[in-house]
């Protein structure tokens, strides 16, 4: 209350007891098994302690026991909404360590797959975000489009969700003959659907009230926490690994990086982070179309080494995943299985700002902020 009124001073003078509320592992809107311990005063939050580790599947221990090609299916299961992105990151890191140059066609197919995966992951993010705020129908419209992308993936590598498609040095299968035609069809159908979800949710007055000016993340705090991806771009800085630290053939396409401008509130609020993802899907469509036009011919399995025995050394490389930049740090001791693999998961890093962002807001806003930073628990707990 900007000015203290007599009634109010009397009411806030009576100290209300603090209540500890568990938004526990099983909660409709914690995007998986994450426990948020909220210290509440009435409805206002004074402290948020995230407890993670409910899905810790010992990825790094498995990497030390498996050989290099066997690790690829495990990287899928980390960020299970963008498995192509994880495999792409692992392949880029290994090729840097081994010094392999993959044929042009492999690079183009990898970019197409990564961008299609970005669209499908953002669709899930927008859908669940709408459902968290209360509008349930956009969730199903987003899943309807995502099913089309999954059928494209299923046509190329036979799996709907976890693909083991991008190997070190190449791909497991070449493209299906009418993959190119079907992808163009999908993109032509997808653009009006995206506009439909936009009208239903993005510019809806109640949605704007619920998300604008909620969970404001200033740029310097974001950089200090190491936040990356749409969460960082929502705060107004044009930072994208595909442009800053270009890998594969991204330098061949022209696309721009959407940035949060604070259209309905201050820059860096939940609405900006949400709207950056909607615009990014548009950019990914552009990239896929350009990649399909310039798709060269060639054998996709020519550069796959028979036995991977990298020299003793280490490599750190990163890739722009839908949730931020995913880094792989691989140390090899010359044998066929790595000595140590450490994954820098973007959700693990952006989860730390929850406490800073949620202080002073209400219980309903915790759900909004958690939905806007779009985390996946498989990646946080690895």
């Amino acid at each position, binding site marked *: 209350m900007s000015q203290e009124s007599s009634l109010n001073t009397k009411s806030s003078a009576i100290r209300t007891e603090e209540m500890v509320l568990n938004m526990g592992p099983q909660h409709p809107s914690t995007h998986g098994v994450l426990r948020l311990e909220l210290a509440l005063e009435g409805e206002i939050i004074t402290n948020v302690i995230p407890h993670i580790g409910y899905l810790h599947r010992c990825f790094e221990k498995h990497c030390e026991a498996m050989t290099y090609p066997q690790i690829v299916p495990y990287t899928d299961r980390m960020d299970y909404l963008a498995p192509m992105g994880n495999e792409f990151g692992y392949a880029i890191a290994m090729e840097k360590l081994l010094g392999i140059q993959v044929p042009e066609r492999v690079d183009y197919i990898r970019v197409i797959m990564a961008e299609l995966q970005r669209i499908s992951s953002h669709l899930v993010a927008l859908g669940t975000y709408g459902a968290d705020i209360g509008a349930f129908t956009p969730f199903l419209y987003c899943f309807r489009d995502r099913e089309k992308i999954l059928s494209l993936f299923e046509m190329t590598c036979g799996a709907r969700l976890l693909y083991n498609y991008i190997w070190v040095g190449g791909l497991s299968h070449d493209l299906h003959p009418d993959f190119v035609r079907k992808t163009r069809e999908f993109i032509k159908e997808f653009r009006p659907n995206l506009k439909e979800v936009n009208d239903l949710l993005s510019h809806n007055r109640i949605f704007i009230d619920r998300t604008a000016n909620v969970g404001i993340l200033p740029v310097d705090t974001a950089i200090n926490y190491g936040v990356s991806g749409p969460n960082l771009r929502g705060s107004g800085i044009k930072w994208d690994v595909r442009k800053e630290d270009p890998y594969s053939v991204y330098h061949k396409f022209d696309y721009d990086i959407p940035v949060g401008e604070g259209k309905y509130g201050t820059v860096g609020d939940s609405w900006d982070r949400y709207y950056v993802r909607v615009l990014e899907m548009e950019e990914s469509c552009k990239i896929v179309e350009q990649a399909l036009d310039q798709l060269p011919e060639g054998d996709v399995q020519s550069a796959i080494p028979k036995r991977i025995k990298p020299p003793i050394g280490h*490599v750190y490389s990163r890739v722009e995943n839908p949730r931020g930049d995913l880094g792989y740090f691989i140390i090899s001791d010359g044998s066929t299985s790595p000595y140590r693999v450490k994954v820098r998961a973007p959700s693990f890093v952006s989860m730390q700002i929850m406490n800073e962002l949620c202080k002073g807001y209400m219980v309903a806003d915790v759900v909004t902020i958690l939905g806007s930073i779009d985390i996946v628990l498989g990646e946080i707990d690895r």
Partner: protein
Amino acid sequence: MKQAEEILQILKANFPDSNLELKTDQPTEPILVASPLEIDKLSMFLRDSSELLFDSLMNLSGVDEIKANLLSVYYHLESTKLKHKITLKVSTDRNKPEVSTVTEVWKGADWHEREAYDLFGIIFLNHPDLRRILMPYDWDAGYPLRKDYENPEFYQGMKVPY
């Protein structure tokens, strides 16, 4: 845009007494080795000095070098403003692993350090809240990612091995 050697010279100029050396023998990027108890002063300087401006900690990972009986920590730093990167390495004795924390410098290091403590047992001095992050809080069977780790037989009545 500075290379690793120039960064080493700047650091040596500002920290004459601490032993810093650059190892470039292994493939891909060179590593700058520093001493574990000075890492927080070093990183405060790395972030605040005008030529370096390392304002973002990309990755902090613990490694168990059992052959050399060491537990080492790798820091991958990056400067978003000057677009250059550096890798720091710090190693401590395996039985009494102590490294001073860098959470004062980069807030993002908080959970990375808690994970290194949880999976390797590296103790970060004056870390705001050093407890296990991924494993259950009452996990008393040691630190899982160490090379010489054995599974406990039972945990709260559930059989752990297959």
